[in-house]
């Protein structure tokens, strides 16, 4: 056990975590370089395409240092603010964290946030100065920044280029020398923290675990603390090298996986503790803080008959992504589907894409919403995450919306455009802190519902990608909020309703009507598209009636061509949703999500 080192890598997005992980894997000879793909641990297509890490990924490496063979367990972690919970899970399985800082960018919002998380978990922080090969490298300034902002001494930290492979041996040396070996007792009752799960069609649920105490091997009878009354026989234990590799046993301090023919997905909960049936531990390990979803939207199958497929897919995805929550929901326009909760907009996007790619589903999603507190005239408070559940306007005394404290890190030349953006988004200025001459932190109080739409994209485009954002929900604040409804041919379409600030209602209503006019094909009759607040129409567009859909010459009695045309039109209609008498294509519901203010 004294030769085991469990560590993770934390950093801001794009600071080179995954590249460093690649170099470590290469260095320890785990993967032949001919099999080496860049960003090896980002196994999801989505991760590679977007160049981001979404899921934590464990890998076991072996390294000979000063004549001793060490086992190094690395857990790669995501960098985006939405995936904080993934980070905190991996932290619980480690004793140290490599804090990778891009020395051309310096300390960023997320570096700080993740670093504080690691300190909270009592991890040893090992700063790594990365990207020294860049022209714009500012090594000494970065060392000073780490000292000033985080309070760590990085004078002797490895200065590396993960891309070029420079000084990677120093990183390995630092890991071995600075990471405390795991504490634990091989002979004590088994306690294993489940820090992630994967579903495999053949093996059932695969639990990714960190063994704190005890030993587990094939045949061990195990149970979970939260799953009362069930026990399982372990069928396989193994490590990630980086593909799954069965081993004889996992003992205290080790990181690996356990399969036990667990077929029911709900039997496993990330954060739960596995123990022996025969010699159980008395106490579970401290689990994870439950993360609260902040952004909600409806997800419906584009083809109504795929509801069951969607349910199964969500169930499987949930296993792998405990931050996702969902419950069945119905919409007049979209039929049966789910109301889902996410940690943020990126998380929402990722889940949608994973559902579509990994489970081959076509989805319709409704506009994202946050959780509003609605105080009714009879003195009650209800939390509303779905605009359609909002009580009637005359029952509402007032409403509160969640607000966040947003810290934006940026070079000083963008202060103006960032402040303009924040003001646009109903922000309240707090302060500007100069970290050094090249970096500032701009602090704002912002309503969360302004951030969830397009704030991140706008900020990136206004600052040429230099600014970074971190935010935390700090509470609720009363404001004038209204529900904006869309009416098609006089009938309200519940799936298109959203809650907006009063001052935005008119412009958004107008934009939505315009978008819908474009997205709804002409039909047999004229369709008024209206935006309304509490029965008052504030915008109107018209989809003109169709005038022609036929009339090609019927060459020499070739009826087949006509039938094909009809078939095509019929197929098109199947993909439409019926809102009253109006057929609305699935894309129309999505088009309103992409509105530019």
């Amino acid at each position, binding site marked *: 056990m004294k030769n085991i080192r469990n560590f993770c890598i934390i950093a801001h997005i794009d600071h080179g975590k995954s590249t460093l992980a690649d170099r470590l894997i290469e260095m320890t000879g785990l993967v032949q370089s001919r099999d080496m793909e860049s960003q090896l641990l980002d196994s999801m297509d989505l991760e590679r395409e977007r160049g981001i890490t979404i899921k934590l990924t464990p890998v076991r490496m072996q390294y000979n240092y000063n004549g001793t063979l060490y086992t190094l367990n690395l857990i790669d972690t995501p960098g985006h603010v939405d995936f904080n919970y993934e980070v905190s899970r991996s932290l619980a399985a480690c004793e140290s964290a490599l804090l990778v800082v891009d020395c051309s960018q310096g300390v960023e919002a997320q570096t700080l946030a993740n670093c504080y998380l690691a300190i909270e978990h009592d991890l040893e922080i090992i700063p790594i100065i990365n990207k020294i090969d860049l022209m714009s490298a500012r090594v000494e300034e970065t060392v000073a920044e780490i000292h000033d902002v985080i309070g760590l001494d990085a004078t002797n930290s490895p200065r590396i280029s993960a891309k070029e492979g420079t000084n990677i041996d120093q990183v390995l040396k630092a890991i071995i020398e600075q990471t405390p070996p795991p504490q634990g007792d091989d002979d004590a009752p088994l306690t294993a923290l489940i820090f992630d799960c994967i579903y495999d069609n053949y093996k059932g649920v695969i639990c990714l675990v960190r063994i704190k105490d005890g030993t587990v091997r094939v045949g061990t009878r195990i149970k979970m603390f939260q799953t009362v009354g069930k026990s399982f026989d372990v069928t396989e234990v193994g490590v990630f090298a980086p593909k799954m590799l069965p081993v004889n046993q996992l003992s205290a301090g080790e990181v690996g996986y356990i399969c036990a023919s667990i077929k029911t997905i709900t039997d496993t909960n990330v954060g739960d503790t596995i123990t022996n049936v025969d010699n159980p531990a008395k106490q579970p390990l401290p689990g994870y803080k439950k993360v609260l979803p902040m952004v909600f939207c409806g997800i419906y199958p584009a083809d109504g008959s795929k509801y069951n497929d969607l349910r199964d897919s969500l169930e499987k995805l949930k296993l792998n992504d405990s931050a996702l929550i969902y419950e069945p929901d119905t919409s007049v326009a979209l039929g049966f589907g789910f109301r889902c909760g996410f940690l943020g907009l990126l998380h929402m996007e990722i889940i949608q894409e994973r559902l579509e790619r990994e489970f081959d589903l076509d989805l319709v999603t409704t506009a994202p919403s946050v959780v509003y507190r609605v105080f009714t005239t009879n003195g009650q408070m209800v939390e509303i995450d779905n605009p359609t559940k909002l009580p009637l306007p005359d029952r509402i005394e007032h409403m509160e919306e969640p607000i966040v404290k947003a810290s934006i890190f940026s070079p000083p030349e963008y202060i103006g455009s960032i402040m303009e953006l924040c003001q646009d988004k109903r922000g309240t200025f707090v302060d500007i802190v100069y970290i050094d001459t090249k970096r500032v932190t701009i602090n704002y109080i912002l309503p969360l519902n302004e951030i969830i739409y397009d704030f991140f994209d706008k900020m990136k485009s206004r600052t040429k990608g230099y600014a970074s954002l971190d935010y935390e929900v700090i509470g609720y604040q009363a404001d004038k909020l209204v529900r904006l409804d869309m009416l098609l041919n006089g009938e309200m379409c519940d799936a298109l309703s959203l809650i907006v600030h009063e001052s935005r209602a008119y412009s958004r209503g107008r934009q939505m009507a315009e978008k819908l006019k474009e997205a709804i094909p002409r039909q047999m009759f004229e369709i008024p598209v209206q935006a309304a607040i509490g029965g008052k129409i504030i915008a109107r567009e018209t989809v003109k009636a169709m005038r*022609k859909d036929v009339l*090609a010459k019927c060459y020499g009695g070739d009826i087949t061509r006509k039938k094909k045309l009809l078939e095509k039109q019929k197929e098109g209609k199947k993909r439409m949703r019926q809102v009253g008498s109006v057929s609305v294509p699935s894309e129309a519901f999505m088009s309103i999500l992409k509105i530019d203010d």
Partner: protein
Amino acid sequence: MSAGLYIHIPFCVSKCIYCNFNSGVCDDYTPYLDCLCNELIMRSVRKGSTVHKSIDTIYFGGGTPSLLSSGQFDRIMDTICAHYDVSCNTEISMEINPNSASQDKIEHFAMRGVNRFSVGLQCADDKILRLLNRPHNTNDFVNTIKMIKQSGVNNISADLMLGLPKQTSEHVKTSIELCMSYNLPHISIYMLKVERGTPLYKLSKTFNMPTDDDSVDLYEQALALLSTYGLHRYEISNTAKQGYECRHNIKYWDYSNYIAVGVSASGFEQRLRYTNLSNVIKYQQKISQCKLPISYAKRIKTDEQYLEYVMLALRMDRGLDKNTFFDTFGVTYDSVYGARTTLLCRQGLVTQNANIVRVTRPTCLNSILVSLLC
């Protein structure tokens, strides 16, 4: 009931830029005509016995059938008469392009029985005709009409196209008035469909093409003008004076049988739909192997027959007769489509009077059909 006979002559003197139909320029028609006549014989034979098929309409389509020489035409007519039971009042139509036949030839066609000519004018504007690469001008059209009349045939139709590049309502008016000045009893009006793979498809991006709405405006204008001359619309694209409706075309819409001969021709016999090979060389190879040159054949199942019947009948201005539907299929129309028809009635898209179902907006027939059939 006698069947119709469609004969496809795929040759043209030049290719129009909107055309994706099977036609082409060729010098020697003989090999094709050999095969065509063989196919005529093959199709007249059913199950080993030579049954003389009874036909009462013949339609020479193309391409430009009027490019056939008198002798070539005779050969086809002789073959038909030898192997089919041609009714004495058979309607024999021939498509003819202006400038494609001499007075002598037209008179010969008429002498051999052609009693209806369909002349491709498209638009009475020489600039537009040049743009479309039509091999004639307006004057050629007038001359051809005169020659046909000279030959004693008065049942003449002209084809007009709507939605052509640079076409205005003035063009449509001029075209119709020109036709009416020669008292033509039948006009077909087709809306141009820009087909992929045609030269027009590329050009349409640079031209200022009329929108669908523009085309419908032109269409309605044309119908209104034609009705003042006594031509009523009897099918979506066809107008005629009383008694001059094209009997062959009506066979397409009223679910009659029609035999098809020649490349890419489509036929419908005994609930079997078929389309011939579209490649002339492959077509000729098949025939020389004594095989039918079919590229596609499908026996239409009962429920699909209902659908086809409704789809075709509703194209006709006279509408769908529920009694005829019952006579044809032995089930009532209402048991299949009654509920949906009533719904469409309420939306004002179809009308039901006695046993007749008609659509109120023929230009949106497909959408009405989708609501009705699917």
